């Protein structure tokens, strides 16, 4: 379905609002393809269209939601009636309300690449098979492939509301990803690699394959290390995961609920002065860039930390109203099933001017962290306490030394922000809402033997 058809459905739902009701309708459609290759053959090929509608109703300050995975007229009517009924059970909240148009015009981003719509199925299959083959050939120690996938999606969404917001858009995305296994008699390691884009032509298959192979083999022979406090150097992939967490604590939702250690601290120094962080929501180079947010407001750049000083939070219409400010265009909706929450689009740190190699050499003695595990179980977003499983390479005399695995690194996020000692120039994009770069943080506890 195209955005115009979806917009008509959204408009029709909104037109059924009764006096005094605020109604917002989100209609989404996607066509997805997934190919998994194994041992040179197609293990599975999935092809499907899905669609859904989500309705939010606010009546007398009470909110109700309803969604359906079908778009026929009867379902839409039932969905609206359910939302209306649900709203009657909510608590009255003077701040409840939909987003209001704020006059900010969305930037023109080209998120839809027509070439994907006409892409050849055989070519998609070839990519998955070739990805598997390249990884297997990448190193003699690769002994297996857990998955080698090609996936793409053509998506369209439309939103309409009784407050006068009407927006529709379309987007394409493609993904190649592989999980590989390497080992010898004593040791097994795993590694993944991926490449993303908006059409097949954007994909860098060799890069994805190489990443997976390297991630696998560099940890072969790694061992547990003795516990100590040291400087950690985070790989951009790890940094991006930490930045996602910090952004979660800077979301208006955490802040207004008293669940953020950064609540009420705008204007205070919360990080090293070298650190500047913002949500660069409309950066066209990012796979997660967006022109409009989950409530139909224009996405925009949101400053969060300026030279170590907290400059503000991310807000949707509701959290902004509670906090007495304006939405930053940061409403995020997981799908048509979810109420709009708050979240970033493209979190970035202002890059420094050192390369990863220069940072490693400057740190001299430390731990280069390639990967972390258990981030969400290991971080208390309220207190900021943090401990995560980690693996990587010990840095000695400014050079990479022995591999380390099965250790944890621990601190608090607040302390880590203050102890940043070097910021890399290697800004890297990922297929999630945070970018990364090499980041060195002093005085972190590594727990091992």
């Amino acid at each position, binding site marked *: 379905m195209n955005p115009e058809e979806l917009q008509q459905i959204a408009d029709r739902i909104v037109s059924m609002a009764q006096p005094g009701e605020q109604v917002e309708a989100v209609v989404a459609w996607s066509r997805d393809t997934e190919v998994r290759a*194994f*041992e040179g*053959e*197609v*293990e*599975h*090929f*999935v*092809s*499907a269209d899905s669609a859904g509608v989500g309705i939010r109703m606010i009546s007398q300050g009470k*909110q*109700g*939601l*309803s*969604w*359906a*995975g*079908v778009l026929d007229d009867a379902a839409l009517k039932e969905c609206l009636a359910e939302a209306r*009924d*649900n*709203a009657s*059970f*909510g*608590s009255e*909240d003077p701040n409840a309300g939909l987003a209001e148009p704020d006059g900010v015009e969305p930037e023109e981003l080209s998120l839809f690449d027509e070439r994907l719509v006409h892409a050849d199925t055989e070519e998609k299959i070839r990519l998955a098979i070739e990805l598997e083959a390249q990884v297997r050939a990448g190193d003699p120690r690769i002994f*297996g492939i*857990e998955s080698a996938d090609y996936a793409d999606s053509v998506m369209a969404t439309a939103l309409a509301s009784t407050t006068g917001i009407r927006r529709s858009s379309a987007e394409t995305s493609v993904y190649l990803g592989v999980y590989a*296994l390497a080992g010898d008699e004593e040791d*097994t*390691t*795993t590694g993944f690699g991926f490449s993303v884009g908006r059409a097949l032509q954007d994909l860098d298959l060799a890069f994805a394959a190489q990443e997976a192979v390297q991630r696998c083999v560099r940890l072969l022979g790694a061992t547990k290390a003795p*516990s100590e406090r040291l400087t950690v150097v985070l790989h951009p992939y790890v940094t991006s995961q930490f930045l996602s967490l910090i952004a979660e604590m800077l979301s208006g939702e955490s802040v*207004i*609920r008293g*669940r953020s250690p950064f609540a009420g601290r705008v204007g205070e120094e919360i990080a090293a002065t070298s650190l500047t962080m913002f949500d660069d929501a409309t950066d066209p180079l990012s796979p997660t860039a967006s022109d409009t947010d989950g409530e139909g407001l224009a996405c925009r750049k949101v400053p969060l930390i300026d030279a170590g000083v907290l400059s503000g939070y991310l807000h949707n219409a509701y959290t902004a109203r509670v906090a007495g400010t304006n939405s930053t265009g940061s409403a995020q909706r997981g799908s048509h*099933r979810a*109420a709009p929450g708050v979240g970033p689009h493209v979190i970035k740190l202002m890059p420094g001017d050192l390369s990863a190699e220069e940072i490693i050499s400057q740190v001299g003695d430390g731990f280069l962290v390639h990967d972390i*595990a*258990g981030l*969400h*179980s*290991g971080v*208390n977003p*309220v*207190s*900021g*306490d*943090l*401990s*995560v*499983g980690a693996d990587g390479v010990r840095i000695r005399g400014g050079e990479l030394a022995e591999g380390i*695995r*099965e250790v*944890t690194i*621990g*601190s*608090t996020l607040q302390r880590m922000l203050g102890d940043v000692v070097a910021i890399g120039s290697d800004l890297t994009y990922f297929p999630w809402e945070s970018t990364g770069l090499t980041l060195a943080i002093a005085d972190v506890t590594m*727990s*091992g*033997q």
Partner: protein
Amino acid sequence: MLEEPTIQRVLAAAASRGADFAEIFAEEKRSSSALLDDGRIEELTSGRDRGAGIRVVVGESTGFAHTSDLSEAGLIAAAETAASAARGSGTGTTIVDLDRVNAPRPNLVRIMPGDVPKAKKVELLLMANEMARAEGAAITQVSARYADSHRRILVANTDGTLGTDEQVKTLFSISAVASGDTGMQTGRESIGRSVGFELFDTYEVGDLARTAAQRAITKLAARPAPSGEMTVVIGPGGGGVMFHEACGHGLEADLVGKGASVFAGRLGEQVASSLVTLVDDGTMGGEWGCFAIDDEGRPAQRNVLIQDGILVDYMWDGLRARAEGRASSGNGRRQSYQHLPMVRMTNTYLLGGTSTPDQILSDTESGVYISHLGGGQVNTATGDFVFGMTEAYLIEGGRITEPLREGNLIGNGPGVLTSIDAVGNDFAMGGPGTCGKDGQGVPVGDGVPTLRVASGLTIGGTAA
């Protein structure tokens, strides 16, 4: 949901290009939830999904398509897409007569959540909020969630299977934040069972609220967790997720088949301490991971995976079992009709032993007592895992002493299994879980008695 002649014609369309196996999975699911935060009922949400997934297997290759259009024309269109998506050369199959699968329902649902007035669900949330806040002025924030779902499935395939099931689940969870001089701490508690609203005849939301609030308050006084390798005692119920993650995933036949499991090729070997018997059981009435038939139409089973330390069997879905010429173990599950089934756990637990919990503790000179583990993840190929400790204490001189702040617990699955040197007689199931694998989430249960892991676990604390 679908008439038998329609099913026959759709399967025929799916197998029309020469298939070894074809299957229809139809699903209708209604869910509702209510959320309380900051003292207010923030919103009620209800949703419904309906559709069918069609799978066609030709040789080693599977084609899959799904549709929300359950008309015969819609299903046949999806069947044709799935048939053309499957690649390879099959021997072809003819459809035999469909045989209805007679699987016992694991339990009866007494009160359908859909029949309960929404006002009653809201009342539970408000009550929980009040009870949690009544635990002390330190409780500064409370959020709570009520959710129920009603899922009807129909599975039919060219092997002649025709099965239906109705799965009802009800869940309540609460999270309390306590604030003090040392900052903020959270405490959580949840209960979820494959039953209807009668859940609340057995469980008082007030008790859940008090437990969550007390967890948060206790942690205010907690000291940073130590770091390094130490002896760990895991409390009843709260640590089952470790066996789910650290052992269960490695026993899934799809991962084993790809060499992505440390347990591959080890059937019949001693893989754990002789105190360990590990079971996966989809038949446990009322538990979060139970059902009558799995999402491939196979009746739920109780499967012993490790018996007295010896690896007895893996868990199987239809596809992997077919390739090995054996029967599925009833572990073929999927998130929804939009997903392909794969090998998944149901309720995974470690059987109780003979020691009393007191004996185990008093025999432990020093270490950490974990009464509640949070989420975690495992690398099945290496067995390395990590979990959050959401409630833990120091053990000193055979006694539980001070509470510890949150930290992660890391270790290696096979290493932990061989290091278990005491298993208690106080088996308990843990809270409801959602297991994620390859992008799909399914409801699972877990359970453990008190047990001690003598070595091999590292606490990742923040204390120097």
